[in-house]
């Protein structure tokens, strides 16, 4: 039986956006979600949580999403986990940069919380297909 996506780490500093995305992922998507308010919090908790996918905000005070991404990737257990950037900085040159870093995809803000879980599932499936093909 194919592996299903169940566990997500979600990293976002802004409380309202964190609340609506958490609602969407937990209650609409039915996923087990570890919500982190900062990059350092994600670095501390994510290895033990062992998620199927990670969603990262880009603009965060202190350690931003890019640095968090690089540090998460440097942890061997997380090196292959698909990481999605969720950001209001989603001009083409910006999304190209995130993809060049190795991001699985980019979800622009604002997003539709009703369809967010479906979109995450789709990205996860695409990442699985790419991993199998390589």
């Amino acid at each position, binding site marked *: 039986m194919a592996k299903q996506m169940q566990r997500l780490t979600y990293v976002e500093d*802004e*409380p*309202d956006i964190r609340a609506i995305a958490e609602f969407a992922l937990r209650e609409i998507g*039915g996923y087990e979600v570890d919500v982190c308010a900062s990059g350092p919090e994600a670095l501390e908790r994510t290895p033990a949580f062992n998620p199927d996918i990670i969603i990262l905000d880009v603009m965060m005070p202190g350690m931003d999403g890019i640095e968090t991404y690089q540090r998460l990737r440097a942890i061997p257990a997380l090196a292959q986990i698909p990481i999605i950037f969720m950001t209001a900085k989603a001009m083409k040159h910006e999304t190209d940069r995130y993809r060049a870093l190795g991001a699985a995809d980019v979800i622009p803000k*604002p997003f539709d919380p009703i369809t967010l879980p479906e979109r995450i599932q789709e990205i996860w499936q695409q990442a699985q297909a790419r991993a199998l093909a390589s």
Partner: protein
Amino acid sequence: MSMQERLRDLVERHHVNLVEQIATVGRLLTPPEDGSPLPLPRIIEAQGITHQMKGTAGSMGFPDVGAAAATLDESLKSLEKGPGPIAPGQLQAALDLMSTLCSIAAATTPEMSTLYNADLSKLAK
């Protein structure tokens, strides 16, 4: 509390925060009474808030507020690129956009969010 009620609660709390954020941006962009230029750090702080607002308001089902915040955000970003304090004349375009954002937000209630009456009955897992 049902899932719909919890979603409404989130929207209502966001609406309160939105009003407070707009008031903060308004204070930050108020030109000094003595006619001196507005210090750049105030523009930078205001832009940080409008940047957040454009993503959050839109995701909370207030696309008009999000779009107005995005326009103001762009205007503030262009002011940030200048060499230093902002002269009152340079600030006028941003103040006009701020006024538009205030008008749109003042006419907005939580019940107007596209999420408020969203049918969640077929979505829950």
